[in-house]
């Protein structure tokens, strides 16, 4: 199979060029939203697509990152890169705690445990004094990157967000292609066999969970800076469902799928919320779920790859 035109490195290059040109053509805030959700979905897909673990509570990590960054930016006046770092680390720590509990069960129990743990966090954030309750944290300052670059400029913010996304995406690619990632795949394909080969399966799952949670936190922290808002929406189970949908639409277990899926879903949501169909948004999201599961399980990228394989 010589599909040399579509090697990963070339595709990476083309996408990178597109991303560099995009903010001069499209609205930068929209693009930043896509990048944040794409990073969120890629982080989620590391767990679902490559370790076979369906987390139905990933919004917790997105929201935790957002709250921590938002709180620090408002109250301490630290620089944005430190704010984001703090959000990522705390999300990773919560991930370490939740992951340790969740990997004790498998399959659909894993999904139920993560959903329930996420709801626990939701109630915590609802009642905690530092999250602003129903209002959330509003007016989070974007600050100056390294104390120098003013991020309130949307274009400069965009390139910062792009850099963060590329870092996250690179890390996920490296993880997937590392020996660690290969063991994860082995666990996904045949867990008893991986155990019999001497791998401590639960530890592998746990580490994958932590990486995924931290990167989801990174996405949430960045998103909070972009929209200058951290709210309960980001920790609600709806958000956990949305990231599943993005990954499903794009193609789970593919590297670029979540990126494509996030772009598709964010575009649809933006389009719907502007028009008359805004009231139907949940119905339409539900319908996309049902259609994807019934007829389009490979997702956009998965399907594209399949067609390529068959025809070239």
């Amino acid at each position, binding site marked *: 199979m010589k599909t040399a035109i579509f090697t990963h490195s070339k595709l990476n290059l083309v996408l990178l060029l597109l991303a560099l040109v995009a903010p001069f053509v499209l609205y930068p805030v929209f693009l930043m939203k896509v990048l944040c959700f794409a990073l969120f979905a890629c982080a989620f897909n590391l767990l679902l697509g490559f370790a076979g673990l*369906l987390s139905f509570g990933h919004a917790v990590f997105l929201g935790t990152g957002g709250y921590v960054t938002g709180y620090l930016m408002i109250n301490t006046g630290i620089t944005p890169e430190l704010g984001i770092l703090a959000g990522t680390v705390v999300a990773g720590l919560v991930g370490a705690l939740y992951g340790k*509990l969740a990997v*004790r*069960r498998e*399959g*659909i*129990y894993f*999904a*139920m*445990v993560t*959903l*329930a*743990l996420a*709801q*626990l966090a939701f*109630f*915590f954030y609802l*009642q905690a004094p530092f999250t602003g309750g129903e209002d959330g944290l509003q007016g989070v300052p974007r600050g100056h990157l390294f104390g120098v670059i003013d991020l309130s400029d949307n274009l400069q913010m965009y390139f910062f967000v792009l850099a963060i996304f590329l870092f996250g995406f690179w890390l996920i690619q490296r993880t997937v292609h590392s020996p660690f990632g290969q063991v994860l795949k082995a666990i996904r394909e045949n867990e008893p066999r991986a155990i019999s080969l001497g791998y401590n399966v639960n530890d592998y799952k746990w580490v994958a969970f932590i990486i995924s949670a931290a990167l989801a936190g990174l996405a949430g922290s960045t998103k909070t800076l972009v929209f200058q808002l951290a709210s309960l929406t980001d920790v609600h*189970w709806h958000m956990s*469902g949305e990231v*599943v949908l993005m990954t*499903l639409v794009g193609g789970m277990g593919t590297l670029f799928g979540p990126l494509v899926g996030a772009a598709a879903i964010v575009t649809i949501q933006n389009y719907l919320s502007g028009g008359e169909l805004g*009231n*139907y*948004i*949940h*119905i*339409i*999201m*539900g*319908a*996309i*779920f*049902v259609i*994807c*599961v*019934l007829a389009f*399980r490979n997702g956009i990228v998965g399907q594209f790859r399949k067609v390529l394989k068959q025809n070239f």
Partner: protein
Amino acid sequence: MATFLGINLFGLFGQLLVGLINGSFYALLSLGLAIIFGLLKIINFAQGAMYMLGAFAAWMVLNYLGINYWLALIVVPLAVGAVGILMERLLIRPIAQEDHLYSLLLTFGIALMLQGTFTHVFGSSGMAYAIPEALQGGFKLPFMYLPAYRAWIVVASILVCGATWWMIEKTRLGAYLRAGTENAQLMQAFGINVPLMVTLTFGFGVGLAGFAGVMAAPVYSVSPDMGSNLLIIVFAIVVIGGMGSIGGAILTGLGMGVVEGLTKYFYPEASSTVIFLVMVIVLLIKPAGLFGKEA
């Protein structure tokens, strides 16, 4: 005011009753989930939406068709069960051979669609449903006031759960079901119509949620998100109990309701999270769940 060791008994028994009522709904929903899981090995994420559908259906048949509560208690679960049967045949059956995660996502999508539809049509504020006349009022007990409808919820739920348990554990039909849970292929080979059994089981499990919905209509406001909030708690309860046993699902549901009620009395701040915390403890001590069989 009656007190014992400094505890306000009125308040305590009141919260215990609320806990038992919540527990009745937990039991009905987790029982439905457990029955469906036993045979189909899938988790019905739309179980909460079906409960919501049951409550709305009760409201609609009363206001549009004039069908009263008692009739609704029979008609609505059948109707919701029929919706479940259609769902199983048209949507779940085609992907039965795929990874079970897909069926979970499918039912999640269905839940979103149902919830979205009802929000769109009825708004999210919720509708009131009057308590049937025969069950208005209450009894004055020495230590508390017991509203008749609330007592009815507990009694009726325990009866329905008990009857379901008896049917599954003690009758021939239930024996088929249990055998199917162990090995569906072998059952098929013995000439049992397994596909039909699967469809009816799914319909029954979903019908239980519809029944719970009708029961809930007079005590909770009938609103589109009533199901999703409840379902997440029920998931935690299913993890606590493990889905291996029918009796276990019922007992865990009721028990967790009582735990929640007690927490509401002694430490109200934790009442919305206590069940999740119990889940965490159970995961640490006995990951398979209190009644779970698998390792």
